């Protein structure tokens, strides 16, 4: 990082990037990188490679928790909303009770019955849960992020087509521009480049 920046004005090294010819090569290279102990590194591929999580030593995704939180919020919100607006006498929220609904008798149904509230509880649970999953995924991936040093590289753009890339970031404690580059080369990379930020 700092010791690679020769002059204050020169762009700092962001990462070393290696292009691999196919899935098998990049897969075994990923296993080697994992075993080498890199932490700030990533595999880029046009599709999710099966089993790459284990090859990279990644922990299971936490998206489920985001979704669970969303779904629970949705269910609770729907129950309170319906109870509060349709059975004002039962769910009584201080300060808000001036807006709470009238107890309107519909077909002799109880004002507050779980049966009639179930459809909307389910729907809002799904709705909030889905937002939880999508937003949770984006949050965990730190997206949207429209500018990334790697994306300025012409070769890197091939990952959206048929390219397989491993990039080790300069932030990695084990990073050394020359050594990392030759290490990646030794794993079968067809091309190794230094990416400036």
């Amino acid at each position: 990082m700092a010791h690679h920046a020769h002059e204050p004005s020169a762009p700092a090294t962001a990462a070393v990037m290696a292009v691999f010819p196919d899935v098998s090569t990049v897969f075994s290279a990923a296993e080697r990188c994992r075993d080498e102990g890199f932490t700030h590194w990533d595999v880029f591929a046009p599709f999710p490679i099966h089993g790459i999580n284990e090859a990279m030593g990644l922990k299971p995704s936490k998206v489920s928790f985001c979704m669970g939180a969303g779904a629970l919020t949705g269910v609770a919100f729907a129950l309170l909303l319906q109870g509060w607006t349709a059975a004002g006498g039962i769910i009584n929220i201080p300060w808000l009770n001036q807006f709470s609904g009238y107890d309107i008798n519909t077909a002799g149904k109880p004002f507050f019955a779980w049966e009639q509230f179930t459809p909307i509880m389910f729907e809002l649970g799904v709705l909030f849960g889905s937002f939880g999953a999508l937003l949770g995924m984006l949050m965990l991936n730190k997206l949207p992020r429209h500018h990334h040093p790697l994306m300025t590289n012409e070769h890197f753009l091939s990952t959206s087509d048929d390219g397989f890339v491993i990039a080790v970031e300069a932030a990695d404690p084990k990073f050394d521009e020359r050594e990392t580059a030759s290490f990646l080369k030794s794993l079968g990379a067809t091309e190794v480049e230094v990416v400036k930020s």
Partner: protein
Amino acid sequence: MSAIHPDEATAIGLVRPGRVEGRDPHTIDGTVTSDPTKRPPLVLGNHTFHTVSETICGWIQQKTPPWWMAAFGVSATVAGFGTLMILYLIITGVGVWGLNNPMSWGWAIVNFVWWVGIGHAGTLISAILCLFKQKWRVSINRFAEAMTIFAVICAGTFPGIHVGRVWMAWMLFPIPNSNAIWPNFRSPLLWDVFAVGTYFTVSLLFWYMGMIPDLATLRDRSIKKMNKMVTVGPMWAPHPLPDFVKRATTFQLPMYKVAAWAYGVLALGWRFSSRHWTNYEKAYILLAGVATPLVLSVHSVVSFDFAVSIIPGWHTTIFPPYFVAGAIFSGFAMVLTLLIPARELYPGMKDFVTARTLENMCKIITVTGSMVGFAYITEFFIAWYGGNPYEQGAFIQRAFGQYWWAYFAMMFCNVVSPQVFWLKWCRTTPWFIFIVSIVVNIGMWFERFVIVSSLSNDFMPSSWAYYSPTFVDMMTFVGSLGIFMTLFLLFCRFLPMLAISEVKNVMHAAHAHLHPHDDHHGKGGH
């Protein structure tokens, strides 16, 4: 790389040697086999990852095909005409429709349920087939999801304009107001608002999320094209051009700049990172997990509109699963109606949408059609068994009353016609599938009409009446078809019709350390 050319089918043992020469004569392209030791390939032709991107993005980045312009012109005109009808309705009132006293729900509800039903296939293909690891779905899921969204838009239009005073439609939603008047949460029609609203939103999220990587692919391709300088000039210009002329006539094509920007914004900076893919795949499978009960719930809630009432012929407990089966049935038919022409019109699409895809969809149509038929029979049997004379009367009216023709059209189209797919020839012959898919769509429209028209013979024979639609009714429906097709054609023109990254993922080359059966450990990819 991945693919097996049809002619190689015998070579690799896909078609059992000795039984046939070359390719299986019972199929279009040799991808369907009954040999249990073999699984047909998912992608045909000599495709590499690169040619997959080229083919699918090519449909967007090519010149607008003339047929597209013609189809779009027709659709947009019809859509415009339908919009005029809606305007006329709003200005004049619901009296311009053919509703009468016992039949207070006419074509509007029929169209609503029909469109919502069609909208079920997309999420079914994406979600349920994803959970069941049916990999053949990757070639049709994007397509079907888009269809879902546009169908739900059309569906939502009808109750929206049926409320009469459209400007009061905001009262469908629980919006705080100073009168403290809230929507009636005990009404199935309000559940519809939430169910269809949720379904639309979640389908949109699912569709969009699935598209993020492909939008990034399009972004990168557009950037490459944008960076290329193009020199324009008349053919007879001297060669090489003088420098000053060249400078003036060489520029980046602005449309690629717009495309790169638009796809770029939508792609959210996706950069194909495996750390991202991990979260992405998890989120995708979770969305599939909740979308599956959501699909079931939406048409169940729609069925509640009818079934919670005490109207004979409407109140029966099997309605929820029966409506869901019918929805899947009609949705698959609509996907086939759109897919088969698209397969012919877009070069290279047949490599992905193979005979096996069509055949599997036909099988699903037969299964769901039979489920619907089973429900019809159950309803009939229990109507008799229950011993309620009103219920029996409703069923006799349906079959032999004034709308007998609708009933028999429904029976023929929904129960009889899909049975043709028991025959191999029928489910592997595209033009025939296309015809049956249209028949099924018509049948499912009639099913909803049969249910709704039960109203015209209500409890009091003195108020029985015959319902017939007006010109406005009919043209609004036709207009909704126009709106649907317009949106769909726009989708085909500007967004990736097939899920590029998912197609790549099911190719042989996508697997590290190949072993013979690696790409089909599906629960039942047949």
